[in-house]
């Protein structure tokens, strides 16, 4: 057991000489090799497309002929485009309502499922799994039937003598149907909250109990502050994904009625693939990038006032 020191010494000196012969690139070749799958995808599929989008945003491009440079024209047209502002309004309404609603729902369900009762694993799986498919085409079609004039929802409220509207055809309720569908996709947030709840040390609750805190008080004074990094994470991811909602609009409302659910990405899709205004759509996507960056930045900036990283 006295040998190691010596061998280590030799090895180090040997490595030193080899290292001096190799360039840093050669030394890191293995790492690059392992990174290659991701790197190639990133370089050719993501970065390449992004740069091309930046270029297209300043052109008039209809896919079939070569792009022609138009400078800022797309952006100035967007500024005067009533549908653009309509889509901004609809999307913001959706984000502002659906993100907090989904956070609260996922936290509440996580709290319910945190209790250690028999078979809790099964309950967790049963509640978690369906919510994963909430963004799928199949569920969207089902959702559409659910909220039709003579759908199950209206049959149910009919029991109480209420005549429900056509939820999807009514301009003021259509967006609510989409928000509700988003709330139902609480699964992944809930799992992260559950993991977070497990990390909170039990002694904090004991201390709170000794101090005479009620359960509600200990939720607000212990659970919530301790969970705040996770709330932060879920808030950020939720905001970004809400800005990019597409499938549900495409299937359920088609942006209607009267553009009340013309969400940004759906409008971008219309410009790109229905009207073939690729340049205009590229400009729209850059504006979306800026908006999402601004919102994320804002959430990051405020985080130091409410996210607690102690213990």
């Amino acid at each position, binding site marked *: 057991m006295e040998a190691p020191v010596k061998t280590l010494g030799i090895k180090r000196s040997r490595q030193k000489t080899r290292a001096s012969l190799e360039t840093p690139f050669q030394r890191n070749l293995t790492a690059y090799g392992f990174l290659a799958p991701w790197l190639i995808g990133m370089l050719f599929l993501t970065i390449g497309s992004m740069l091309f989008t930046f270029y297209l945003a300043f052109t008039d491009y209809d*896919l079939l*002929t070569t792009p022609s440079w138009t400078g800022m024209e797309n952006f100035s047209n967007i500024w005067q485009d009533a549908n653009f502002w309509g889509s901004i309004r609809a999307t913001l309404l959706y984000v502002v309502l659906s993100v907090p609603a989904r956070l609260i729902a996922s936290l509440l369900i996580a709290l319910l499922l945190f209790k250690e009762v028999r078979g809790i694993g099964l309950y967790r799986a049963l509640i978690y799994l369906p919510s994963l498919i909430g963004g799928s085409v199949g569920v969207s079609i089902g959702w559409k039937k659910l909220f039709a004039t003579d759908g199950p929802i209206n049959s149910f409220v009919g029991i109480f003598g209420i005549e429900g509207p056509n939820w999807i055809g009514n301009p003021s309720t259509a967006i609510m149907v989409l928000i509700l569908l988003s709330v139902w996709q609480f699964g992944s947030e809930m799992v992260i909250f559950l993991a977070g709840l497990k990390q909170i040390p039990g002694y904090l609750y004991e201390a709170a109990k000794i101090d005479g805190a009620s359960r509600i008080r200990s939720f607000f004074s212990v659970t919530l502050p301790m969970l705040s990094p996770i709330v932060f994470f879920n808030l950020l991811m939720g905001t970004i994904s809400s800005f990019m909602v597409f499938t549900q609009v495409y299937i359920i409302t088609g942006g209607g009625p009267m553009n009340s659910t013309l969400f940004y990405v759906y409008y971008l899709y219309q410009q790109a693939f229905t009207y073939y205004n690729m340049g205009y759509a590229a400009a729209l996507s850059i504006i979306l990038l800026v908006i999402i960056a601004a919102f994320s930045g804002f959430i990051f900036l405020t985080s130091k006032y409410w996210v607690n990283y102690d213990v």
Partner: protein
Amino acid sequence: MNRIKKQYLIFVSVIVSLGLVLTGCGNGSSEASGDEGVNIKFSWWSNPHRTEITKQAIEMFEEKYPDIDVTMEYYSWDSYWQKLATEAAGGGAPDVMQMDGSRLMEYVNKGQLMDLAETDIDTSGIPDNTVELGKVDGTLYGLTTSVNAQLLISNPEILEQAGVSIPEENYTWEEFAELCATIYEETGVHGTPNEMEQPAFLDYFARTKGENLYASDGESLGLSKETLTEWFQYWLDIQEKGGVPSAEDNAAYQHNDHSASPFIEEKTAFNWLFLGTGGEFEKNLGKPIKRVLLPEWGNDNKPYPLHAAMFWSMSSKTEHPEAAAKLINFLENDPEVAKIFENDRGIPANSENMELVAENTEDDTVQRQNEFMAKVEEIATPNDLAPANSSSTGDILKNIAHEVTFKKLTPNEAADKFMQEVNQALSEG
């Protein structure tokens, strides 16, 4: 040893990553390629039945021409146009493609299509005015596969319950509106879905007034503001009397989703559509339907348009024009193919094939479609192709129509807005 291991690792990881990238770009739908000869790509928009019969036809083609191998691509309507435009942008447009009258002009203007008159495709079996439908400025860019026409289908049971019938002779727009209102009063079933948002039907309305939706140069609208206002007012009046579903129900119904039509759920007595899709409605309703000519069909302006249901077109960039021409010729003229296709793509353009299908079919829908088409051909005049920049007209009309049905816009304001927005789109491009 270390060095070899390292190089080996690098080698493996690079291979794996290349593999990932390549499979990502791979083409899933290509099928066993021939050892020699040429490979051509053929794309069409499809429905499950059409996919099946078209595959059968391609099998027969490959048997007949063993040195030509056909790669098939088929999509739903929406995805088809996305895919086609993207492929054309990348220079990889299919050699043979199914084309629609609403897009033909656009692809011609962009230089994507081949003059079919220069190929060996045989058009002798097709009536001249049908071939004419696929010409732009005298050049044949699309070969009409089959013809189509607008019509009303009715549910005879509901009409009987309401104690009404649709006149055999010419009838007016007003009479149709009254019919819808009476049906609602008598049965509680609406007359028809609200068709205010459909450009093809607005075009027909304009034709009954001696106008067209688009001007002949395709750079502006062709109809007058009076006609447009009248169109919005017409449907709004029917809506007030319950002749069409409520604004809400109408807004929730995406009109291009045929399986969601209220006609199928027996919530309307009529549905306005193209002849080719009637069979689908009949199947979904599960009862026989009646096919009726539209209001004012017999008026002096000869409003009935003769439509090409779809075209076969060839890419101008194709490397194998001869093989592509053989395929188009086969799909268009081969009697065995016609027997498989029947009326799936519309009434066959090739007259002999049309008769052959009628003689051999076990589906009596074919017979009734042919009879109807024979009536239409007596009264119809060819329809102009949609202008190149008209792809947004549908969405514009839909939004404005919704605002009218929800009474956010008066018909007069709606007409102004529609003219302004569509004219702008047409002139900009």
